[in-house]
């Protein structure tokens, strides 16, 4: 992930509330949308396709050291589940620890 720093982060990444799951349903929908886009773009630009939930918590994707915020695992799982529903993520194990991330859904390929 050395080249992850070339990645151009969206404005939300510098916005602390981005790292707290929003209780307001409209806000949360927008937030999750932004997260989904970010995850896919991040994997695409860095050419990563495997995501390990425990490891990901330490990766810059979910952990913004500059503003000292990170997304908790509960939220990460929620987003990955959403992505799975739309076909961008496939779990490798039943415990939902590791998954493939598809920049494009298998149908699109």
């Amino acid at each position, binding site marked *: 992930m050395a080249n992850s720093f070339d990645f151009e982060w969206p*404005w939300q990444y510098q*916005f*602390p*509330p981005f790292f*707290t799951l929003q209780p*307001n349903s409209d*806000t949360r929908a*927008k937030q999750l*949308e*932004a997260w989904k886009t970010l995850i896919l773009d991040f994997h695409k630009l860095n050419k990563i396709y495997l995501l390990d939930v425990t490891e990901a918590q330490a990766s810059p994707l979910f952990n913004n050291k500059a503003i000292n915020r990170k997304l908790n695992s509960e939220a990460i799982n929620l987003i990955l589940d959403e992505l799975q529903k739309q076909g961008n993520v496939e779990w490798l194990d039943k415990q939902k620890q590791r998954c493939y991330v598809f920049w494009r859904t298998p149908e699109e390929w």
Partner: protein
Amino acid sequence: KGKQYRAGIVGIERQIRDRNEATGETISEAFEDLKNLMKMAKEMVNLSKSVSQKLREKQSDITEDETVQFKSYLLSLGISDPVTKSEYGSGSIFHTELAKQLSEALIKPLQTSGGILSLTEVYCRVNRARGVELISPEDLLNACLMLEKLNLPVKLHKFDSGVMVLRLETYDTASEARKVGEILQDKGSLTADELSIFSKVTLVIAKERLLFLEKEGIACRDDSIEGLRFYPNRFLTEGA
């Protein structure tokens, strides 16, 4: 008192024994009276139960004088039973009167504190002012529940969190929210205690205001070890 005791140890012992007997008598007398009192109260409770049974048998109508009177009997006994009696008379006269008195007494304090006061604050102020014949928390709540029906200028409001406040009738939630929204834009982000300092309201109310903004989609939260901060909701205003 007038009894003469002999000098010496025997005299002192006798004196102590007499004194103990006297206190023992006073104590048992006091308890005897209490027992009698309880007995009477028990009869009253039984009586009121049979009355409420009769009330139930009759169909519930609009506030009859009988049921109102009965309510005040229950209150004087300390066994108000609103669950079974809520159909028979809406609250008590006492609470109605208390509600009127409260709204009169609270208008000034409400105006000086921006039209809103939490119920605990009201409780403190009212009882502090009274000194004697204090009101119980339940009395206050019951009186406040009557406020709406009596069409008084002070209203009770319950937030989603369960916090209850009294507000002036003229209190405008929307304009208040706008004001807080402006402060939020101005400062970039706010915690409840920062807002409570800026807008000079109590912490509880400041928090409720921020939660209200969040509910309306104007603010969003940042929950971290540094505390719960609220930011302007850029998710909705700026898009992806």
